[in-house]
């Protein structure tokens, strides 16, 4: 049993249809403060579509997303002001430096973000020496780290990361895990989508698993591993799929 904590994210009957295809089908879940939730599923399951709806890049067909009680549909600004995110690939203006991109991003937030905070987040992701380099010279891993720095920039309470392990080497993965768990201990909530089940298992304390837009399992990692009597999330996933097909 987990103690009651503040609900940071609430997804309620979230649905996305395009033409006659249902990409996301009545998703329901919520995250509490400090949760690190893995949003898992195979390629094409609807993960990125869901995250795009959460960040108002695309519009739900029905349902809603509440972030600290603010609806992403009707109170978008208040909802997004508490969110930092990487959706699909982090993208920046390639002709600008890392610091210039962060500066632009900071000026578009609702709060004052001092230069010291920009330096702080660059240090957290080991990019302080590359701050004056143009982003077009960055490797994929460096762009991923800059994306993470951008997500942290405005001290969000909810961070949404879409496939954050792309392009990261094993050291980068370890650093990501340590950073996420350290920030979670400070009360920041994470929603991390991935199809790399084993990697996410090491980072997350709970998971939501979707398949073809539908939620097929959710819960705390330890509870699910006990429930399915397996040692890793891959086996949980296959067990869910097997149960689904049965």
């Amino acid at each position, binding site marked *: 049993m987990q103690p009651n904590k503040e609900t940071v994210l609430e997804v309620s009957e979230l649905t996305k249809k395009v033409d006659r295809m249902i990409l996301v089908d009545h998703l329901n879940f919520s995250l509490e403060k400090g949760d690190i939730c893995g949003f898992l599923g195979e390629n094409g399951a609807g993960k990125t579509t869901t995250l795009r709806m959460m960040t108002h890049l695309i519009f739900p067909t029905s349902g809603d997303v509440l972030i600290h009680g603010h609806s992403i549909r009707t109170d978008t600004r208040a909802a*997004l002001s508490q969110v930092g995110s990487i959706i699909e690939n982090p*993208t920046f203006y390639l002709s600008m430096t890392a610091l210039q991109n962060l500066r632009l991003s900071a000026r578009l937030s609702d709060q004052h973000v001092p230069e010291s905070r920009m330096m702080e987040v660059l240090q957290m992701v080991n990019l302080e020496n590359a701050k004056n380099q143009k982003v077009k010279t960055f490797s994929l891993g460096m762009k991923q780290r800059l994306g993470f720095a951008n997500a942290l920039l405005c001290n969000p309470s909810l961070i949404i990361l879409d496939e954050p392990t792309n392009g990261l080497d094993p050291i980068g993965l370890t650093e990501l895990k340590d950073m996420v768990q350290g920030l979670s201990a400070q009360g920041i909530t994470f929603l991390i989508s991935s199809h790399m089940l084993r990697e996410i298992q090491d980072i997350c304390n709970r998971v939501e698993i979707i398949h073809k837009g539908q939620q097929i399992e959710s819960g705390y990692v330890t509870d699910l591993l006990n429930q399915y009597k397996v040692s890793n999330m891959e086996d949980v996933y296959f067990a869910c799929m097997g149960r689904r097909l049965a």
Partner: protein
Amino acid sequence: MKKIRTLLAFEGRRMLTSKSTLIYVIIYFISYIISVIFFQLYGSDGSVLTEASAQSFPIQHLQAGILFTGTFIAIYVAQITRQERTQSTIKLILLRPVSRLQYYISKILSIAFFSMLLTLIQITVGYLVGMLFFGWHGTLVFGDIVTSGLTGVGITFLSGVAFAFAYFAFGMLMMLLSEFLPRLIDCAAVGIVILLIGQYAEVLPSIRPYVLVHQMLFFHQDIFEMSAVYNLRSAIVILAYCLACSFAGYYVFRHEDLSV
């Protein structure tokens, strides 16, 4: 307002420091030199120039640059709209608490500034080339206007403002069309086609005052030659294009799924 200012400042810096802007300056410079060469070889029959004077040079070349200027505007609009989708940089902005309205307004204002910048570039390069080849002596001759000195400069810049207004409306039309065109090259191509076809409206006197290309060709000239009522109608036509295209474009953008 702060976010619109931030986005506008960002676009302004990009506008002023981009290679594209430098290329446009060079293209105008080269085309004006070619005009000078043709004038010197064939007189006013071979060029838009009627007066060999730096005072007349910029204003007499404004209309002649319709294809260049219109294309540059179409490309710029595509760069700040369509390219932001294809390169996904729109995410950097819209994942912050920036409303789509704020984003769209910043683009409208950027297009307005770009129209004015292009006009200023044409006038400045025109004066520069005119001074290099003809000097400041002589008069400004523009339609029925014959004047000189600071009055001529004032008339040139006033004409430029009218010119920029009409091209801003073209930019708004391109911004609406960019919502439906997948790539930058498509926007540029459509812009050129509109400019070419729109000129044929000149053969239809009843409709040509309502065709945007007619206003792009003549509004900056008509403000000195036509009546106040005529010019008011022209201004309303241009404004109507601006408003209709901006509202329609925003409606489409506001409801657009950005799968970037």
